[in-house]
């Protein structure tokens, strides 16, 4: 009986010793040293902005064009500004037409658009650029501009204003109106309601080391 009691006592003592040892080990882990550093003043990190706006120069897009005839070119002028803080790229132009007719569906007989830039603002009354002109888009049929945006400029600086002359032409055509009746497929007396859309994307993303 005594032997059994001694055994129980020994086991209990060994258990207490083991638990005590584990506690000592744990205490040793929790007592490790640490250090940290941080900037005393918070670092501002701000994102850039990308913005396009346009303004009519002269009649611009805000005034209807009436009575355009085959061979006519009507020039309208606008100022397109990349007004954000980010540079842009791949500036494109596309158009949409509220209603379809030959003016906007026929690549040969319908309207054609061109875009020319000027380093200084255009003089709309005379159509004169007193700076340097650059052709940004050659004469392009309306159906093409409706189907596919056309690239005007590959890069636009932040804050840059593009002075644009938009040429709207009706190609030469021969039609004969007989006794007041125009021919089938005439370009006469039609109206196209055009919406002009310019689009750009941000400049190529950068990896900045400084």
């Amino acid at each position, binding site marked *: 009986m005594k032997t059994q009691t001694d055994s129980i006592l020994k086991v209990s003592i060994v258990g207490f010793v083991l638990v005590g040892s584990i506690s000592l080990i744990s205490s040793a882990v929790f007592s490790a040293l640490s250090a940290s550093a941080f900037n005393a003043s918070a670092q501002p*990190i701000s994102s850039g902005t*990308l*913005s396009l706006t*346009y303004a009519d120069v002269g009649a611009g*897009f*805000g*005034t*209807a*064009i*009436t*009575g*355009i*005839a*085959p*061979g*006519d*070119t*009507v*020039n309208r002028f606008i100022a*397109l500004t*990349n007004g*954000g803080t*980010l540079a*842009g790229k791949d500036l494109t132009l596309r158009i949409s037409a*509220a209603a379809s007719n030959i*003016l906007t569906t026929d690549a040969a007989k319908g*309207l054609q658009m061109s875009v020319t830039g000027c380093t200084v603002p255009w003089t*709309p*009354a*005379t*159509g004169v650029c007193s700076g340097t002109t650059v052709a940004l888009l050659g004469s392009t049929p309306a159906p093409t501009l409706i189907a596919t945006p056309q690239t005007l400029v590959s890069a636009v600086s932040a804050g840059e204003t593009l002075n644009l002359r938009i040429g*709207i032409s*009706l190609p030469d055509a021969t*039609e*004969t*109106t007989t*006794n*007041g009746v*125009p021919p089938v497929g005439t*370009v*006469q*007396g*039609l*109206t*196209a*309601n*055009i*919406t*002009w*859309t*310019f*689009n*750009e*994307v*941000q400049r190529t*993303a*950068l*990896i*900045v*080391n400084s």
Partner: protein
Amino acid sequence: MNVAGIVIAGAAMTVVPAQALVSAVITSGEQSITSARWSIVLNGIDGPFSSPPALGNNESRTFTLTNAGTATLASMTLTVSASGDRNIWLCPGNVICNEASSVATASIGETVAVSTTSQVPESPNDVTTWTLRKTSNGGNATFSVNVLVTSNDIAD
């Protein structure tokens, strides 16, 4: 440590390029573009131009050209054909048409064309007058007149 696209490793900081592109769009309001319409109406004043139009003895025929379209016209070509047994003069205006005042003479069986920038009904609703007359009395002449108008200009 990776936090929202910004990697901080030691003292160096690298800004990771955004994956999505920012784009900007500007769209105009609708711009109306209307093409012109060309229409010339010929009216015989003192006689018919319906077939067979003919000039009898001492007859002349005055007709008007009306710009019934919306286009502004720059020039036109008048084509006159004569048949029968007399030649035909074409004169601008409502005049006593003779050799001196004529701008074209169509011989029998001939078609002549004359291009002009005068007596053109330039603006919509403008009306101009022309006269046909046989070159001599007696006999008979039938005629036809065709008008081709042109307009080309560049507007700013």
